[in-house]
């Protein structure tokens, strides 16, 4: 059924007619219940957002006008049937809503929590055109996915009979997981290889518990196990096993979702002082190694005056973690203004409520340490906004001669990541762009080596969970087609 046919179904028409559009738009947007800011800035593991109640969700769903031309869907990178699932929530059919989400999204409980909805679906909502707040699509997505999970009635996808063809996946982030899920549904024998000891990629080692509990990611991983996907951790493709080893082991297709794991530094004076680290190191220690727990062997600095350089989600996660680990001053240092910050709006709001200081239009130029080599101060260059640059954001320029000195005892550098070079370096003949990402055909996600497909951050540089997931699904569909065509050719020639 296409979108128009779905919309013309009797239950949708009846539902639309139950309320006038004006009545719907007059309902104020739901507020996500959340933990008290003072309490939560000292608790590391409790999720900030508590989730909507069924009543709240049904009320919020009423706000949706069920537009004939649902522009929200165009804002969604994977084209979720947004009005359909929202209207299912309005009728109380929460299980049905979850099912609708899963038709296009492999990880709705994750995306409902971490997608930048205000830049995607919600930015296109009809309400925003009427200068009203958008329907809380992200909150509703999370609600439906959580409801299904908590009900214990998880709909098991239909699985095609096994075709015995072995497929390898490199990396267990959202790209790899969604690819693996779809291939298993098509009937393939899928094995996911992960370099770290934990499955989940950034969802586990990067994004903190207070924003995305590990338990939620684990449910998704267990669902994949239930449909036959195998996971092998502690295995680096390109080191422990080569792509050639995989071929020899009979793997007929390989999907690379190895992420953008390489931290960038700024190469400024004093950056290697003790107490200065990448957000990857900081978050890995705290999230993957659980370093802040008493019983963990991994140490982590618990600074009192912590500066985090950057304005993205990773910077917000780091600074809020530092606050939770006891920082009296937890500060964001960002070279542009708040308006240009790439972080999700909600993270910025939550950070502010938790007492994070925002030092915008500041850029570090030098670090100063004590005799032990520990960082004690940083010199900040004051910036102002100049002309818009290629990305359309106004680019920061130095205010000549204007610097400030800031006392710090820990600095977390969060100025971006580069593609993980391991696979690009270890596979001969694989086409790599000048940015170090793997080059693919954008329609199929196939690389110039036919049996290798790739997606997620290793193709896009740093991107988002939903885009990585979308890539994984697209790659699965086209690899499936590629294998079918290939087998057809072989059959024709016999």
């Amino acid at each position: 059924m296409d979108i128009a046919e779905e919309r013309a179904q009797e239950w949708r028409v009846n539902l639309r007619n139950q309320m006038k559009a004006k009545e719907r738009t007059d309902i104020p947007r739901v507020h996500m219940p959340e933990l008290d800011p003072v309490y939560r800035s000292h608790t590391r593991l409790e999720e900030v957002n508590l989730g909507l109640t069924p009543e709240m969700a049904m009320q919020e769903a009423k706000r949706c006008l069920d537009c004939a031309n649902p522009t929200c869907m165009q804002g969604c990178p994977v084209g979720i049937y947004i009005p359909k699932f929202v209207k299912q929530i309005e009728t109380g059919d929460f299980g049905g809503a979850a099912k609708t989400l899963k038709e296009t999204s492999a990880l709705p409980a994750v995306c409902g929590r971490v997608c930048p909805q205000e830049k995607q679906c919600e930015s296109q909502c009809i309400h925003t055109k009427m200068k009203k707040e958008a329907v809380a699509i992200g909150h509703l997505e999370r609600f439906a996915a959580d409801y299904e999970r908590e009900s214990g009635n998880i709909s098991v996808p239909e699985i095609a009979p096994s075709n015995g063809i072995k497929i390898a996946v490199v990396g267990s982030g959202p790209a790899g997981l969604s690819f693996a899920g779809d291939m298993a549904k098509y009937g393939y024998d899928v094995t996911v290889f992960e370099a770290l000891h934990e499955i989940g990629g950034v969802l586990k080692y990067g994004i903190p518990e207070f924003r995305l509990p590990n338990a939620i990611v684990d449910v998704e991983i267990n669902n994949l196990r239930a449909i036959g996907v195998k996971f092998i951790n502690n295995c680096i493709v390109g080191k422990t096993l080569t792509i050639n080893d995989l071929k020899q082991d009979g793997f007929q297709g390989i999907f690379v979702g190895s992420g953008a794991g390489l931290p960038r530094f700024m190469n400024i004076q004093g950056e290697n002082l003790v107490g200065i680290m990448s957000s990857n190191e900081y978050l890995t220690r705290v999230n993957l190694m659980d370093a802040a727990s008493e019983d963990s062997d991994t140490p982590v600095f618990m600074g009192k005056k912590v500066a985090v350089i950057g304005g993205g989600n990773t910077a917000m996660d780091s600074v809020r973690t530092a606050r939770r680990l006891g920082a009296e001053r937890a500060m964001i240092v960002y070279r542009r203004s708040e308006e240009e910050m790439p972080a999700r709006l909600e993270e910025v709001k939550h950070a502010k409520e938790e007492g994070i200081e925002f030092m915008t239009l500041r850029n570090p130029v030098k670090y100063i340490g004590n005799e032990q080599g520990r960082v004690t101060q940083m010199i900040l260059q004051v910036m102002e906004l100049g002309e818009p640059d290629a990305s359309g954001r106004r680019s920061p320029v130095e205010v000549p001669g204007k610097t400030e000195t800031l006392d710090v005892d820990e600095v977390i550098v969060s100025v971006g990541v580069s593609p993980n070079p391991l696979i690009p370096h270890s596979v001969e003949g694989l086409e790599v762009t000048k940015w170090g990402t793997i080059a693919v055909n954008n329609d199929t996600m196939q690389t110039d080596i036919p049996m290798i497909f790739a997606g997620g951050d290793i193709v896009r540089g740093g991107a988002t969970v939903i885009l990585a997931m979308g890539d994984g699904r697209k790659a699965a569909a086209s690899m499936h087609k590629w294998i079918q065509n290939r087998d057809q050719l072989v059959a024709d020639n016999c």
Partner: protein
Amino acid sequence: MNKIISKEYFSDNVVKLEVEAPLIAKSRKAGHFVMVKVGEKGERIPLTIADADQQKGTITLVVQKMGVSSTKLCDLNEGDFITDMVGPLGKATHIENFGTVVCACGGVGTAPMLPIAAALKKAGNKVVTIIAARTKELIILEEQMRQHSDEVIIMTDDGSYGNKGLVTNGIEDVIKREKVDLCVTIGPAIMMKFVSLLTKKYNIPTVASLNTIMVDGTGMCGACRVTVGGKTKFVCVDGPEFDAHQVDFDEMLMRLGGYKDIEREELEKMKCASGARP
């Protein structure tokens, strides 16, 4: 999970473990290391692959008790499992016939030197190994080193065994005695710093294998970064071996000390918990 096939004590504080790891055994080369984690809440620590047996599918680790994590590993027994192990990591040692090579190792550096000395010897080099320690009890792996070296020189600070003096005294004696084509050094950063200063004076190419603090060991975090020739490098992927004359050892020393206080506390805690007097 990797099973420990055999365990042997080289001394009270140094243990040799043979561990099941067929894939790593197949792909490793001299100079490669693995990351090892003991227990669910364990730390990931780097350890050099001292040897491998492809037929048996095992690798050998030689571990010296330093702090919590290495002690936990040394306390495992035959038949126990190592919770997590990944590798082989790092760049393999560049092995060729250089001529005469001095392998200068001290303290924690003796274990990782073993496979390098063995590979150099196999490639036809004359290998002169110098093992240095504060005192006799701390000299380890002497026997094993003898098997892979043309000569082994022992140096102790207090003269309780071998020659009295520092590792640098030992190296200088060799340099004065014969032409040295390459020096390889592994040990405490302070030792490598002085080895490097010495060989620079004599213009002898020197490779240092750096044992920085690591977290993932795969290039993901930057905890292991050092400055080499004015540029920041990640020891786990760009190393662990570098041209010693280009390494900023002072910075490395400073960074190694970063977690000392926390580590000391952890060790005290572990000792208290296990009933031993701190």
